[in-house]
C-alpha cells in the first residue's frame, strides 16, 4: 500500500507540473518534419517558464533501478537528446522545490531484444498451455468425466 501514496502524489502533481516547461521535438535533419513526440536519439527542445538550478531526467522512475541523469541546462531553453526509449521523469529543481512530469520517449528503431523476449515468453506460455490442453482434449475421456458437455 506504500505505492498507494506515491501513485496518489504522482496523479495529483502531474497537472501542476505541466505548466512549468514545454517539450518540443526537433527534426533530426533540417529537411525533415519534426516528430510529434520525443524519440530516442533525436533532439528535443526544453523551454522553461523560469530558470532553475538543475534539470534531472530519471529513467524508469519509482522502480528498483532508476537511473538519474543531470542535464546540461543553462538558461530557460536548451536541447536534450534522450539516449534511450522508455518512461522518464523530468524534474525541475529550484532550491527545495521540485517539479516533476513524466514523459514517454519512443523508440527510434524497435529493439530486437524486446521482440525476442516478447516472442519467446509468449511461445513458452501459450505454447505450453496449448500443448497441455491438447493432451487433455486428445486423450480418451472416461465416462465419469467427459472432456466437455
Amino acid at each position, binding site marked *: 500500500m506504500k505505492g498507494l501514496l506515491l501513485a496518489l502524489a504522482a496523479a495529483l502533481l502531474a497537472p501542476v507540473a505541466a505548466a512549468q516547461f514545454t517539450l518540443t521535438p526537433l527534426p533530426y535533419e533540417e529537411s525533415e518534419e519534426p516528430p510529434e513526440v520525443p524519440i530516442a536519439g533525436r533532439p528535443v527542445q526544453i523551454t522553461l517558464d523560469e530558470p532553475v538550478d538543475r534539470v534531472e531526467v530519471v529513467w524508469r522512475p519509482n522502480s528498483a533501478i532508476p537511473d538519474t541523469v543531470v542535464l546540461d541546462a543553462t538558461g530557460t531553453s536548451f536541447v536534450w537528446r534522450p539516449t534511450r526509449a522508455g518512461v522518464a521523469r523530468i524534474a525541475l529543481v529550484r532550491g527545495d522545490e521540485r517539479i516533476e*512530469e513524466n514523459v514517454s520517449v519512443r523508440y527510434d528503431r524497435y529493439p530486437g531484444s524486446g521482440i525476442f*523476449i*516478447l516472442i519467446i515468453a509468449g511461445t513458452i506460455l501459450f505454447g505450453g498451455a496449448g500443448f497441455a490442453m491438447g493432451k487433455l482434449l486428445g486423450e480418451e475421456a472416461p465416462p465419469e468425466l467427459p472432456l*466437455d*458437455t
Partner: protein
Amino acid sequence: MADPRPHPEDPIAEHIDAGRGAWKSKLGFILAASGSAIGLGNIVFFASNAYQYGGGAFYLPYFIALFVLGIPVMILEFSMGTMTGQSFPLALRKLVGKRGEYVGWWSLSSALFITMYYITILGWALAMMIGAFGGLLTEPATAPFEGMTTPTDGPNATVYFFGMIASWWPVLAVATVWALTILSLWRGTRTIEAMVRVFVPLMWLFMVVLIVRGLTLPGGVDGVLYLFTPNFDGIRDVNVWQGAFAQMFFSLSLGLGTMTAYASYLPKDADQINNSMVVSFMNCGFEYIAGVAIFAMLFVFSLNPAGTTLSLSFFVIPQGIAAFPFWVKAFGVFFFFLVVIAGLTSAVSLVEGMASALIDKLGVTRARALAYVTAPGIVGSIAFALPFVVDPGLTGDGTLGLTLLDLLDHWAFRYALLTVGLMECLLIGWVLGPEKLRAVVNRHSKFHLGPWFDWLIKLVIPAILIFVLVGTLWQDLTGGLYGSAYEIRGAEWLPVVIPIFWFVATLVLAGLLTSRPTHAHADHNVPAV
C-alpha cells in the same frame, strides 16, 4: 449429454457427500481452477513488477519461479484433493495426521480474512464500474480529504475513488458482490461450472479488447516493447527474486486451500500434472496479455506503471482510460467489469474452499456451510468498507475501512500463503514422503515426475519460501511497524492490534475446528495411499 455419474445424493457415490458434488467435465474444472487463479492481481501485478525490476529481464526469475515453485506446488495441492477426495484440512489430515489438519484450518482461517477484504475490493470495482457510466472518467471530482475538497480541473480517478469510499455506496456494492458469490455457490460445482463457463471466456475476451485498444493508440507498440526489453541491472537485486517467487505464489492462488478443494471434485485418476500445467500456463498467459494491454496504455499517456494492485487498478489505469480519444465511458466500464469478473471467479473459489471443508468436517449441508462462511464474511467485508474519515490528511488510507484493509492485507496476505506453502511442503516432504504422492500422480499421468520432484518438495521449495519469508520479515522488523506512520484519529493503536488479532484469531479458530470430531463419512473414506 447426460451425466452418467451417480447423483451427488446417491448414497453409494464414492467420496461424494450430499452437497459436495463433482465436476461435469474436465473443461469445467480447468475453467474453474484458472478462474480461481486469475484474479485482481493478475491484471496489474506482472506489468508493475516487470517495470520495476527491468522489463523483459524479469522473465528470468519469473520463469524460474513458475517451473521450480508454481507448477510443483500446484501439482501437490491438486493431488492432495484427488487422492483424498477431501478439502484442504481433511486432505492434510488423511495424509499426514492432525498436525496437517491444523495447518489446513489455519490456512482457511486466514483465507476467511483475505476473502472479507477481497470482496470489499470487488465492491469498490463494482462501484467504479457504475461510476464509469456516470462521471468517473469525464467530470471533475471531490473527496472529503485535504487537498480534495475543491473540484479537480478534469476527471481524476484518485479523488473520485476517495470520494466514493468515504460514502456508504460501496457497502451496497459489497452486499451485491456477496449475493453474486452466494448465488454462484448455491448448488456447488453445478453453479460454479455454469458461472465460469461464461465469465472466464469473457475475461479473456475483454482483455483482448483492451489489448487491441492499447496497441492501436499512438505509441502503444513502443510501450509493449518497453515492457519486454530487458534491463539486467535489476536482476542482481535480491528483492527481484523474492518478488518473483512471492508473486508466483500469490498469482497462482496457492496456499489458500482452493486448488485442493476444486481438485477434490475430480475422479482419483485425474492427470494432475497436465491439469497443473494448463492452469499455470493459462494464469501466466493471462498476466502476459494483461501486461501488454496495461503497459501499452500507460506508456502512451506517460503514466507510471509502478504501484500496488489497488493504486494501479483504481487510480492509474482509469486515469489512462480517461485520456482515450473516444469511447471513454465504454472502455471504463469494460475495464472495471473485467476486474469484477476476474475477482468474482477467485472469490467464489475462496468461499468454496472454506465451505467444502466445513461440509467435510462437520457433515452439514451446503446451505449451512455457506451460512457459516458468509455470515462473518459479510460482516468483515462491510467493516472494510466503513466510510468514516479517520485520516483527513491522507497520511495513510483516509477511511477506517481502507485503513483496516491495508493493515490486515499487509500481514495476512504477505505471510499466510507462503507459510502455508512452506508447511504443506515440509509435511508432505518429511512426514508422508513425496515419493508416495509422486507414485500416485505418475500412475495417472502421461508425463512422469522424477526423483527431482521429491527434492523440490523436501528441500528446494521450502528453502525458497524461507528465503522469501525471512526477507519479508526483515523488511517489517527494520522498517518500523507497518502503519505506525499513519495519523489515524482515535485509533492510533490499530497498527498494533490488527496483526495480533489476525494471528491469534486464526490460531484459535484453527485449533477449535481441528479439535472438533470429524463427520463419520469423511473419516471412513478410502485411504489416500
